[in-house]
């Protein structure tokens, strides 16, 4: 009796659907949450004055990469990317792909956890041990994952407008300090370097892969590919604007020395004599972004793991996965090492997962279709 009750409840929880607006906000938050971290600084390091162009161009490249994911999802409605890979490539190869996805999500969650925790310690809690900060984040991740992705998307939608407002306010209030001259030379280190970095850094938008995981839960199935497209475009606009704002407010050399430039940017905001340092208010929005971003990635981790090993109920995995993520997040010895690891080493392999596997699957599905056609 009791068991059936809980089963029904599980069914109810799993049956709940995501609205397209909510999914869109979640994806945008996932992709532009990283501007709070060292993303603008990394771009300044790579491209000097053209850092913002790298963001823009890699965004455009990732749009091309996204096309394969979108067409796959369109072809197999009601299936997520992990199920598609298993049905296309068979059990063993599909499981291998799922495990690769799991590793991707695991690495991104751990690195994000570490970086956000470090950023909060640097900015507002200088004397707090990192394990405390991580614990509070992990608490949210576990709670959010147990409640399900629907809740997280609703929260994202609930906070979305405020986050957008915060971006606009930050950009607007730093305009008095801006100098467009600082964007010159416009192509930075030259067009070839620019193009190379843009191609190699489409990982900036690799979080769009979560759409592949949540796609079957979206209520309007015909809007799935549009959700991804619009969220990518919005994220490209936000990320490019923020990077450009950082570059024109501080120059590129100073930007490359600031680990978390957005925080410095919010410090500039003053409203008359009274409200002078509002960055503590921004801590709220920053926190919400961090929690939503990590919540989404954590959900991806847990789901991809349970898919890899055929576990139908992912909820018991949540605690173990939280501990795993925490442990991995402590591997790098320092904050700068974490940042560099994320930006320049691990992230090189992200596009292979998030855009490479969909491309592979897309080719396989094309071939299969052709095979059926020629056979038939």
């Amino acid at each position: 009796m009791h068991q059936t009750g809980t089963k029904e409840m599980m069914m109810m929880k799993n049956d709940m659907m995501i609205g397209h607006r909510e999914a869109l906000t979640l994806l945008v938050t996932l992709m532009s949450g990283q501007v709070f971290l060292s993303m603008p600084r990394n771009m300044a390091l790579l491209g000097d004055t053209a850092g913002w162009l790298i963001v823009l161009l890699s965004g455009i490249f990732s749009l091309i990469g996204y096309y394969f994911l979108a067409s796959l999802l369109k072809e197999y409605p009601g299936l997520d990317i992990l199920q598609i890979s298993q049905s296309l490539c068979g059990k063993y190869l599909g499981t291998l792909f799922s495990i690769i996805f799991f590793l991707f999500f695991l690495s991104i969650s751990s690195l994000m956890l570490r970086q956000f925790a470090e950023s909060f310690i640097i900015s507002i809690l200088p004397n707090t041990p990192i394990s405390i900060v991580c614990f509070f984040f992990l608490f949210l991740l576990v709670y959010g994952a147990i409640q399900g992705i629907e809740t997280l998307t609703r929260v994202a939608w609930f906070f979305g407008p405020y986050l957008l407002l915060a971006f606009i306010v930050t950009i607007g209030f730093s305009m008095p300090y801006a100098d467009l001259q600082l964007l010159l030379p416009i192509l930075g280190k030259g067009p070839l370097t620019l193009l190379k970095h843009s191609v190699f850094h489409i990982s900036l938008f690799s979080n769009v892969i979560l759409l592949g995981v949540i796609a079957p839960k979206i209520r309007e199935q015909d809007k799935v590919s549009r959700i991804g497209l619009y969220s990518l475009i919005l994220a490209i606009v936000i990320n490019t604007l923020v990077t450009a704002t950082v570059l024109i407010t501080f120059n590129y050399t100073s930007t490359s020395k600031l680990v978390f430039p957005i925080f410095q940017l919010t410090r500039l905001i003053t409203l008359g004599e009274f409200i002078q340092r509002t960055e503590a208010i921004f801590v709220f929005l920053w926190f919400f972004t961090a929690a939503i971003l990590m919540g989404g990635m954590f959900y991806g981790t847990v789901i991809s793991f349970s898919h890899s090993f055929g576990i139908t109920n992912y909820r018991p995995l949540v605690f173990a996965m939280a501990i795993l993520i925490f442990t991995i997040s402590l591997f790098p010895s320092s904050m700068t090492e974490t940042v560099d690891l994320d930006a320049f080493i691990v992230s090189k392999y992200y596009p292979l997962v998030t855009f490479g596997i969909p491309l592979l699957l897309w080719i396989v599905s094309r071939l299969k279709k052709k095979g059926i056609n020629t056979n038939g």
Partner: protein
Amino acid sequence: MKKTNIFRRLFQLTSKKPKFSLNADSFDPSQNPPVDSENETGEYLTANLAHNRKILESIFGLPVNKDVVIRDFTIASLKKKALLIYIDGLSDRNTQNFAVLQPLMLLSRGRLETDEPIDIAYERLVPGQQVEKSKKLEDVINGILDGSTALLIDGSDEAIIIDTKGWEHRGVDRPTNEPVVRGPQEGFNETFRANTASIRRYIKDPKLITEIMRIGKRSRTLLALLYIKDIANPRLVKEVKRRIESISQTTDYIVETGSLEEFIEDHPRSLVPQMLSTERPDRVAAHLREGYVAIVMANSPFALVLPTNFSIFLHAAEDYYLRWPFGNFIRLLRSISIFIALLLPSFYIAVVNYHQEMIPTDLMLAMTAAREAVPFPALVEILFMEFSFELIREAGVRVPSIIGPTIGIVGALILGQAAVSASIVSPILIIIIAITALASFVVPNYNATFTIRILRFLFIILAGFLGFFGVSFGVFLMTLHIANLNSFGIPFLTPIAPYHPENKDRVIRPRAYDQPNRPVFLRPLDWILQKDISRPWDNSDASDGNERDDDDEE
């Protein structure tokens, strides 16, 4: 008294058994077997009056039970013995004398021949306006317990239940917890039928259904489920009924909508109330016409409206009675005050403990100077003050009204002047507490205030540990929880998240005529609240003469 007696009492060395104790020995099930009246008596009445009388006597515990009165008499015209049974104090004497006994005993003189005396009595002898026949014992018992009078006639296996309800009760009064300046000044009271009738006075719709059930095995409280048949979603009505029916026989005693709420709500352990309890019939009526379901219970001056969403924290009846800008001004004020009531003390703690740089230097110097003499950390200080404020609040509710003003004096003295001059708290803290208190009184729902009052303490503690990081953690956790809540199948944050563009009554309410849809998240049978034809004269496309006249003048 003898000296030795006193001595003995003082130094009683032998252990003495208590004179009376309810220990385990006092109950011997073999000695007093549990009385189960349902097993002894059948479900139906018999044709034998003496037997029926015996059954009823055993059920009501006569003659020990003095509440229940049995009046034997003979119906002259039928030449039959009969009896009346009722509860003294619940039924109206005048009705019994003049509408039941007088016609039966005196007025019907002619001889009436019939096989079925009960039909004659029903059709010709009992002039009461609400009379029903029943063979079921259960109906008779429930009728008697409700204050009706049961008439049993010899030779008939049916009883007539005559409505003679009439007891002392409170009159219709102003709603004490939800007063408004503009709008109806009438609240529910403890009388069941008066409450249902007052709702119906607002909705004179034949489709407004009042289903009546009983709840509680012993309390047998009457409960009315109200909904509009062609608006409310039948699945919602069915679910509410299912939940009520599932507890109607399993529980002993449910007498207030407050405890019913706990039995049927979705998340009993959540801090957030998931039903709207209101004492305003106009508010219930307004919800009913939108497709909600209402529950009214006898003896409870609060009705439940379900399902509900976050609006219990924000919306009040008056918002809709005031003009659009005024109502929305109040709404905005209220939403700001919710944030203040929840977060202001924790902000203070966070700023004082962690983020001193946030406030201007002058203010910070003033605050530090004020705090200089205070020996406690800010966290202790604010917890102490919040606690004493909660004390005043609770004492203000419980204190007998004669000494009520004392609370004000004591509270004001303790919280105000004395605490500051004794350097226990800083004056700025008093301001913070006062604003928080005022803001928490603005929340329109009594249940919802509790959520905010309790959460405030959690936020204070979080702020004390981790500053703004802790507060933002708390806010995010709260939002996660609220986004996950469900009240009878609708998400608590709807129509914000999940978003429903059709319903604009969220924080700001739309103009009264600019609200074409019922809440679509309730999936009502009829979505259209009002058609677009409201205010046709605003429509510039209207090809009536006025438009042309204006043009001519120009």
